[in-house]
């Protein structure tokens, strides 16, 4: 049995429809022209969005992890049979994810294809690094400007176009991890770090842990009481 899910007659409508998964418990969200074959496993909270004039086609036996986002723009996005996408994978643009490809969790695939049987490590960034600037020049899609800028920030100096997406995985993964480390360092405010170094603070924490075993740390760390 094959279930074809087509968007409403208005191609521009941004409404999202929640669809029950196969066991009726998991829910994923569909917008635009999205076609999902039978026997596809889709985790909870997955977002499948096809821009106007674009199409998402998910073949048999594909498995998409929880919280993934597939956003087709500028062409069709095809996930071929047996491909596995880990948890939190982000696929943007057009392209084909080949047969039995395995994409690790929290990977970002920007406007490129993945060869069949390819294995991509978790946390990778692969695809066309000029993705954002292309969009700006072409102006064909309604991409969020902040999203475009973010893509440019992550890739300050675009490397030469990759001959094979998989070949550049390691290099881009490293750059991606560096960028992630930088962004992780920022949110730790100097105040909370300083509070942990106060003489007697760790001792007080231990004491409080003994007195109140089920204690939760005060939520007023950012200062508002």
């Amino acid at each position: 049995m094959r279930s074809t899910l087509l968007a409403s007659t208005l191609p521009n409508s941004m409404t999202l429809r929640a669809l029950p998964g196969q066991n009726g418990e998991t829910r994923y969200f569909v917008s635009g022209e999205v076609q999902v074959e039978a026997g596809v496993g889709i985790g909870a909270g997955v977002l499948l969005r096809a821009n106007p004039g674009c199409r998402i086609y998910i073949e048999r036996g594909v498995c998409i992890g929880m919280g993934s986002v597939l956003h087709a723009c500028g062409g069709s996005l095809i996930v071929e049979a047996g491909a596995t996408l880990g948890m939190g994978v982000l696929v943007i643009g057009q392209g084909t994810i080949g047969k039995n490809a395995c994409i690790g969790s929290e990977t970002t695939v920007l406007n490129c294809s993945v060869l069949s049987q390819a294995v991509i490590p978790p946390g990778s960034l692969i695809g066309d690094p000029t993705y954002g600037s292309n969009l700006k020049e072409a102006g064909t899609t309604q991409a969020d400007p902040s999203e475009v800028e973010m893509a440019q920030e992550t890739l300050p100096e675009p490397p030469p176009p990759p001959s094979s997406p998989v070949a550049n995985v390691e290099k881009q993964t490293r750059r991606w991890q560096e960028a992630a480390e930088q962004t992780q360092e920022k949110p730790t405010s100097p105040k909370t770090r300083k509070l942990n170094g106060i003489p007697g603070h760790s001792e007080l924490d231990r004491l409080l842990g003994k007195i109140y075993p089920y204690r939760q740390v005060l939520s007023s760390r950012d200062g508002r009481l």
Partner: protein
Amino acid sequence: MSTSLGLIQTRSFPVIVRIADAMTKSAGVTLIGFEKTSGGYCTAIVRGGIADVRIAIEEGIELARQFDQEEISSLVIPRPLPNLEVVLPISSKLSQLAQNRGYSRLSNLAVGLLETRGFPAMVGAADVMLKTADVQLAAYETIGDGLCTAIIRGTVANVAIAIDAGMYEAERIGELHAVAVIPRPLDELEQALPVASCFVAQPVTLPVTLPQVQEQEVQRSDTAVGRIPVYLEPPETP
């Protein structure tokens, strides 16, 4: 009887009180008091046998390192000469002086100390501490270099929660410098800590009638008005 002298100095009042607490519990030493020279330098003075003093000072140094105190200085003098004791505040006269000040209503309670750099942060933290848990603000102490310490008393659970809340408030207003909680201070540590006068029950002398015990030439009355010291507690203000 000659007793040895031990000194240890750090740059924080809660830390030195915590160290003094550990020292008095680690060996048979007597805490004489705290010497607060300005600039944030505080010294704890202990006396006792040489073995006790050495154990106590080593314990204090170890604890000070745990508290990340960079400028620790310590000293052990096995037998200080009497002239030193007469001039410097290192003899137990100081604690005798302290013991004479009367009975505090806040004894036998846990102690919490919260030190900030700057007065407003300390006042704000003290206010939050009093509103958070059933504690009393016993006193405050300044040691120079802008460091002020609020001293609270209460049961250990109340004190710990109050200090935890006050810590964040102090950090919000100004700069938090150090905290300490002492679940069960020894008597001599309690005597060395300042207590505001409103918590101290001073001996009040009341006129009472006493039966005359011996016959005197004065025969106008058989009772005389004398004065004996009686401890009275002022009524609790709501």
